[in-house]
């Protein structure tokens, strides 16, 4: 447990410290430092036996998510160092805001790690709400009308969602309390999993609906997705990266925990159809939305919705193959999408615009960046040899073998989204490079601020995962897949 405690405590301390540290350079360095410590602590987990206490739980499901979160947290903090340096130079942000930004960044990491490792429904709920509040503040960091608009929308929608999720949590307790008696036990995952068979299914169903809608809002499932694109587009790019890469996963993780309960309890209605419906809705809607996007960050935000839809669909299908695909897809998507946002962040900074039609020829003007972005989009589009291909392969084949009629909309959705991705990425990466917005200097003359290491680190991981998965990971996936029913 101590390791978990460290993992969760480090960012908390980090937040406190960074709130006091002046100077954005030192701040960003410390930011990286704390994230690194968190990552190291989370790597220690791999050594330890799965364990659960009153407060924390570490099992096959969240261990890799914790590590993933810590890792993306670190790479993002590295990316953010270069990013904010540019923003400072461009006078978009000032020191005071940056102190706040760094503190909030660590606080955000804290809430997410807490939500992942919490063994208690209530604690998890509080953590997710905390994640909402911190990100709201960061989305509105630029104080532009658009960013405030976005933050406000995000806040209201997710606020309501959170409220519904809380109601669902209360219902869950209400259902468990007669069986397990009053007290903490009825709100603890490990305990619940033990007694869930005796819990009356009726309230479970009710609770799950509220939890699905509530946390589903944060997952960004259609039609609850409205906050997601604008929050991604208007906030600082590092935040877009962690939102897409981590927060969505955490919310989905919460939903899945409850799905496990329902799966374990025999009589409850199968949550599959609900998730399949919402997943397909998200996939198809997002796929269509991609075509009309002109803002590059909003574009990739919609692609996140699309992939969350695919993942939800996978878990809705259930079964060893589909669940395996879903778990793999979660990891691959968070790595790839955050990598894409790094690249997009650099691209936006060198070209000085977020308008897709004003960015072009990146492979010519900035080869490293351009090909990195291309590779990222290729990966997210489900082309080999990247990891997403494997998960989509498993998902499509297994679905078609079991439910041919469900596989068709799935494939159609993927293809529709694919078309849009290709359309835009060719525009971004090929053709003649344009000129910098405003100054009018040739884009090639502007160097990339900061390092591209995070981008390529993620791509390398996704590439490896595409052709080879380490044994332990496979083992975890398979155990969890079995639990998810």
């Amino acid at each position, binding site marked *: 447990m101590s390791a978990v405690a460290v993992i969760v405590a480090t960012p908390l301390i980090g937040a406190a410290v960074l709130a006091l540290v002046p100077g954005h350079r030192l701040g960003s360095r410390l930011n990286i430092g704390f994230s690194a410590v968190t990552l190291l602590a989370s790597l220690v987990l791999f050594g330890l036996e799965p364990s659960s206490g009153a407060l924390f739980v570490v099992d096959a499901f969240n261990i890799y998510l914790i590590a993933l979160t810590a890792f993306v947290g670190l790479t993002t903090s590295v990316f953010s160092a270069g990013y904010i340096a540019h923003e400072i130079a461009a006078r978009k942000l000032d020191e005071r805001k940056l102190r706040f930004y760094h503190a909030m960044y660590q606080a955000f990491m804290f809430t997410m790690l807490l939500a992942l490792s919490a063994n208690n429904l209530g604690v998890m709920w509080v953590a997710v709400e905390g994640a909402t509040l911190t990100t709201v503040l960061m989305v509105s960091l630029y104080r532009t009308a658009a960013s405030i608009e976005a933050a406000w929308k995000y806040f209201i929608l997710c606020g309501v969602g959170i409220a519904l999720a809380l109601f669902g949590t209360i219902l869950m307790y209400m259902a468990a309390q007669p069986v397990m008696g009053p007290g903490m036990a009825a709100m603890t995952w490990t305990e619940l999993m033990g007694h869930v068979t005796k819990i009356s299914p009726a309230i479970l169903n009710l609770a799950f609906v509220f939890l699905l809608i509530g946390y589903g809002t944060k997952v960004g499932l259609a039609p609850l997705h*409205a906050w997601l694109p604008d929050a991604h587009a208007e906030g600082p790019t590092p935040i877009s990266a962690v939102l897409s890469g981590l927060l969505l996963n955490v919310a989905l993780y919460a939903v899945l925990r409850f799905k496990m309960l329902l799966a374990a309890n025999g009589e409850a209605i199968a949550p599959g159809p609900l998730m399949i419906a919402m997943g397909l809705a998200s996939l198809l809607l997002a796929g269509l939305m991609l075509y009309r996007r002109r803002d590059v960050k909003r574009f990739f935000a919609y692609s996140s919705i699309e992939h969350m839809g695919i993942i939800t669909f996978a878990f809705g299908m259930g079964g060893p193959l589909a669940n395996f695909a879903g778990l793999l897809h979660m990891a691959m998507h968070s790595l790839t999408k955050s990598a894409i946002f790094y690249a997009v962040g650099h691209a936006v900074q060198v070209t000085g615009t977020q308008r897709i039609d004003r960015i072009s020829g990146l492979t010519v003007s900035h080869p490293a960046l351009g090909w990195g972005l291309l590779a990222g989009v290729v990966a997210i589009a489900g*082309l080999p040899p990247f990891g997403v291909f494997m998960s989509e392969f498993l998902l499509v084949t297994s679905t078609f073998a079991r439910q041919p009629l469900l596989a068709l909309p799935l494939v159609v959705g993927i293809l529709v989204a694919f078309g849009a991705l290709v359309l835009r990425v060719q525009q971004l990466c090929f053709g003649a490079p344009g000129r910098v917005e405003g100054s009018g200097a040739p884009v090639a003359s502007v160097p990339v601020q900061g390092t591209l290491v995070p981008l390529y680190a993620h791509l390398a991981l996704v590439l490896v995962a595409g052709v080879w998965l380490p044994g332990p990971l496979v083992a975890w996936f398979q155990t969890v897949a079995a639990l998810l029913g």
Partner: protein
Amino acid sequence: MGLVVSAIAFLFAMAAAGIAAKRLPQASTVVYGGTAAACALIALWAAVRLAGGGPDASLVLPVGLPWIEAHLRADSLSAVFLIVVNLGGITASLFGWGYERAHHDSHGGPVLPLYPLFLAGMNMVLIAADAFTFLLSWEFMSLASWLLVLSTHRESETPRAARLYIVMASFGTACLLLAFGVLATAHGDYSFAAIRAHAPGAGAAALVVVLILLGAGSKAGLVPLHVWLPLAHPAAPSHVSALMSGVMTKVAVYAMIRVLFDLLGEPEWWWGGVTMGFGALTAVMGVLYALMQDDVKRLLAYSTVENIGAIVIALGLALVFKAAHTPVIAALALAAALLHVVNHSLFKSLLFFAAGAVLTATGSRDLNRLGGLIHRMPTTAVLALVGAAAISALPPLNGFVGEWLLFQAILNAPALPDWSLKIEIAVVGAALALATALAGACFVRLYGIAFLGRPRSRAAGEAVEVGRAMRLGMAVPAVLCVVLGVLPTPLIRLFEPALRLLVEAGPFDGRAYQPWFWLAPTSAIGNSYNGLIMLVVIALLSVVLVLGIHRKASDRVRWSIPWGCGFDGPDSAAVTQYTASSFGQPIRRAFGSTVFRARDHVDMPAPGDTRPARLSVTWTDPAWVAVVEPVSRGVAWLADRANRLQYMTIRRYLTLMFLALVVLLVMVAVSQR
């Protein structure tokens, strides 16, 4: 097997070298040299395996899907296609080396690293022995070729072509995904061995057949899924176009054969019927398209569509005869298919190389800006003539042998039990004959306009012959075209293991021994063909003729101006020549006016007006109208509708949320009743 894998690994290394040594002048030499070497190695290995026989080489690598790992296996079928792919790879590398040097100044994309990857991908497809590895390699191949097409991204037409290409390619992959979803066992064993072991039910098999025809067909360019092909293939650098058109389409054919003949088990009679129908449609449509093109490379791409049609017809016949339990005839048809696969890969590469040479020399792909190149580029002209003659199925070249075998198979229709099939085969035969004849016209047009007559542009008039490497790259396939035309039998004998694997028979079974230079397949019809003797006799006769004539006739020659209705002088005469579109006019009128709504618009100036008259041709592509436009329009329409969701008020979004909640609650309430 390890050798093949390491050769492929070496190709990846070449790609890495291409990235690393991009700036160095020797980079292209290293990469193309290394690639050619690796291809030669694989091709040799495959040839030896085919000749030597023995058990299939196979290998399991601890990568890919965790619970089945990556199965690699090279049986005789794979070997046949390995030869095709890598033969193309060798010549393309040779030509590409010279091509790169010629176009050194041009700002091409990163062709160097991608070129070996493309070949590696194709090789991997051929040795993959489980669905995951297969599709991974398949899509990797598409990815590499897509990026290769994009290497000319500064040309205005490329992006659209590339986009359409990769989208259609993924459509195909999606179809194959679904097909393998049906084939694979429920507990997720995707290895071909397991797939073979559990045969699908009738319904499932039917589904798979359709999906494979869609999936592999979209890659091979079956009408109406061919729309991307004539856009994408020409957009790439010429040696890559040659690979895409001459070789990659064959990989698609391999996929069809692998699934339809190998994985699916015993065929039903209608599979072949459907396949044949598609093939016939493709063959005729493809050549008609080609006849209306003025862009040399696009014309070649359309002719690829036609040849794929012919190959697919042969596959369909083989399926039909296999289902009818007449394996020897099935073997004959399949042999025709494989032979045509080899032939087409040869002469199509040759012709694309020639187009590349012309492009290098004149900087133009437009027929109406070429002409008279036979004087400026003698070697290219000769080699291109060989290619044109071969693809027009003229004896004694290789194109004719494949066609001859195919007709022999068609003539066996009476052996079939089913009436509808007999009649369909008669119609298919007519279609094939029509396609072949039209192909002849098509290549007379191409060669006559591009190489003969007088230059139609200054660039054509000042063209200079291309470098030695490029000429050599063209010479190799040209020579092979002649050799295979004269001596096809040894090659077919070489392929026999593959035929036995797929239809449990060889085309020569039960025939008394014949010498290796004699082509006389077993079949109800005791026909034979001998290109060698024919060649010898032709040579003999022409010698006799020439001697006889020059004994008697006068050798006096006078050079003068040709009769052009008074339009004399070298300059004006160039204008009075037939253009590509005027050459195509009769056939356009005969066929195009209904199918393509082709129309000629003649802009004739009034008498005394010095303005030149113009003939312009407009036509519409039915496949485009029927397939692409509806889809794109539909998606656009839906996208516009969906886009409204982006601009709603927060309250509306809350309402959506509320409604979602209520709906789910109602669902629960209902499900609990």
